[in-house]
């Protein structure tokens, strides 16, 4: 249990950084402050309702208020939310059930294509009817459908996985994930279903007249670009809320316990009457479902899907989030997703832009002994392009020094020290 004064400090910090963000919506420091407070809310223990209230105030008041001045804030948090949902899904498969899935981005792709094909003129290529499907119910309907298609695909990919353990499973999921991508790339022939590597664009979005009306009412005007930024922000927050709730419920249910049981010892689990097949399939399908719904939302938000968004790199990115946060830990997955997304789309990119500016301006850094003219800096030095290196380092360092992650699973903490001996000798 954390002492009450720490919660008070967090609340004060939240208020201060939130206010600062509203005052300087384009400045980096208040944003980092707000995210730091959110991290803190996720990582301290106890005082559940106060932490929840602080996080809610930031997410529903301070960030949106600042976001009307700087739509990038919506973009950033929306991306974080999308990845957080995927990290939570993968966390079930890898973290709880202990099945290393290297093809996880495939489910995201399935969800994205589910809406993209019918939410654009693409469907008219292979079936009759009038497309795109515009109008309000369709998007939500297909988001729900995306859950089902992704879960079904999860089951399909999971079926062969049942017979395999550990590293073979990883390779098979990697292979099947690639198969999904290659199919998306090549199902433009003989019947054009996915439009191949060219991808699908533009993709319909649900009408948001109600939101625009509300925005006019509070004096924000009715700019649809801002409207959609707010809409997807709220939608993703709502979905994340549901996903977290489902995760917490599952974790404490017999499903969650069964997953952990097969992770810890398959043979013992089977001996205790757990059906391995069914339990693993449930893990795969549940994890895939979260990814699927976010895929549908992503395609509408991005207006575009193409197979290249669903590469191994994407799967590894999500894996790095889970590993960083702590395998099996729900709060860990959230923290990991926030941290890696922040690193990926804000910190590295701004650092790259900063170096580009220095290079263009020919700024000379004079430290007395050495001086360096930034105009001579190679344009290969662009941190934003070395995401693979960063993820690689995260994975290696976490595995060597802190395999249980930043916020270890609470179960693990209970069992610490009870690890059995076996090693990699297999």
């Amino acid at each position, binding site marked *: 249990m954390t002492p009450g004064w720490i919660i008070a400090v967090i609340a004060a910090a939240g208020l201060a950084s939130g206010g600062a963000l509203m005052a300087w919506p384009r400045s980096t420091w208040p944003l980092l402050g707000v995210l730091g407070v959110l991290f803190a809310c996720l990582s301290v223990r106890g005082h559940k309702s106060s932490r929840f209230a602080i996080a809610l105030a930031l997410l529903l008041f301070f960030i949106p208020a600042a976001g009307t001045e700087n739509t990038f804030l919506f973009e950033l948090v929306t991306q974080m939310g999308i990845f957080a949902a995927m990290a939570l899904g993968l966390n079930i498969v890898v973290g709880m059930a*202990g099945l*290393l899935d290297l093809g996880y981005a495939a489910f995201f792709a399935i969800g994205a294509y589910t809406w993209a094909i019918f939410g654009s003129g693409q469907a008219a290529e292979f079936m009759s009817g009038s497309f795109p499907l515009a109008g309000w119910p369709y998007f939500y309907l297909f988001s729900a459908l995306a859950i089902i298609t992704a879960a079904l695909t999860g089951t399909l990919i999971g079926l062969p996985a049942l017979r*395999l353990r550990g590293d073979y499973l990883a390779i098979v999921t990697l*292979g099947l994930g*690639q198969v999904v991508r290659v199919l998306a790339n090549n199902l433009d022939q003989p019947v054009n279903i996915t439009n191949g590597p060219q991808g699908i664009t533009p993709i319909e979005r649900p009408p948001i007249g109600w939101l625009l009306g509300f925005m006019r009412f509070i004096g924000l005007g009715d700019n649809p670009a801002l409207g959609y930024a707010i809409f997807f922000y709220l939608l993703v927050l709502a979905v994340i809320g549901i996903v977290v709730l489902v995760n917490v419920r599952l974790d404490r249910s017999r499903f969650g316990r069964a997953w952990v049981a097969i992770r810890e010892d398959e043979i013992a689990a089977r001996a205790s009457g757990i059906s391995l097949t069914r339990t693993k399939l449930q893990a795969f399908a549940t994890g895939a479902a979260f990814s699927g719904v976010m895929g549908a939302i992503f395609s509408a938000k991005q207006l575009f899907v193409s197979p290249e968004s669903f590469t191994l790199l994407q799967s590894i990115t999500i894996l790095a989030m889970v590993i960083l946060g702590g395998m099996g830990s729900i709060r860990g997955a959230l923290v990991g997703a926030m941290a890696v997304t922040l690193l990926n789309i804000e910190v590295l990119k701004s650092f790259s832009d900063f170096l580009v500016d220095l290079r263009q301006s020919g700024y000379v850094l004079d430290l007395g002994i050495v001086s360096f003219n930034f105009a001579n800096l*190679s344009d290969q030095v662009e941190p934003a392009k070395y995401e693979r290196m960063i993820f690689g380092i995260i994975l290696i360092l976490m*595995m060597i020094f802190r395999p249980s992650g930043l916020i270890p699973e609470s179960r693990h903490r209970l069992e610490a020290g009870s690890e059995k001996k076996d090693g990699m000798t297999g």
Partner: protein
Amino acid sequence: MSDALIELLPSVLLEGLLLGCVYAMIALGYTMVYGVLGLINFAHSEVFMVGAVAGIEVYRYVGPHIDNPYALAVVAMLVAAGVSGGLAVAIERLAYRPLRKRGSTNRLVPLITAIGVSFFLQDFVRLIEGLWHGEFYMNYPADARMEAVHELPLGMTIQTKSIIVIVVTAAMLLGLDHLVRRTRLGKAIRAVAQDLQTASLMGIDPDRIIARTFLIGGALGGVAGVMFGLLYSQINPFVGFVPGVKAFTAAVLGGIGNIYGAMLGGLVLGTVETLGGTYLFFLTEGAIGNEYKDVVAFLILVLLLLFRPQGLLGRTQGDKV
């Protein structure tokens, strides 16, 4: 048309053999490491890539001083073997050994580390090459003597460089066979592969043997990198992934842990891939080109793991508890 297709067959098989040589050489690295550690060394595809890049640096810096293209190719292969072998040992020492020493139970931990190493190396090579030469897409230079075309019976043609690839592969495979079967080191490797704990009780230093295994596997991968560059010319830091997965498939196909299986698996996979890539187009009258050849390799892998995980030459092994 069908006559033309039959006439083409020997040439297709020859191309398949060349590709198979590259796969076999990479597959050996996977299979040897799996044999001694039970670990899928995900980073091996990057060891292969580093070999290809090291080879191109030889062509850049030594090339202008050596007029004999055959000698140059051999120098490139030797350097690549050294660099890749050293890299493989370094990976083992820095990333895998600490995990082994900790005695962690989780089999996912070393695998995730290996993935991390693989991703790290791709961008690391990209950064180094970018800083060094300003770009990271590189081409093996063409030399008229290496490109010379020789006529063979049955309408086949072969280039000098392809002959070199076949000869080098054969020599390396024979050498490896001798090493594993006839030398003390080979015996020690086999002992560690059979049972690491018992082997260490018999006076074998497992760390040293594991390092040697990484060295040999890495060196073969490095040579494969140069062969790949000679055959297909364009190289980049991300070139390792696809051949890496294919070679792993080849290793599983032959029975993972079995070096003869890896050689056979590589040749079979290379041939199947080239056959499928060439003939599917004609069989479907142009509806399907060669774009599904990666899918075919992955599906072979999945089906194999499901129905014959021991591969073509492997023995069944029960799960250890």
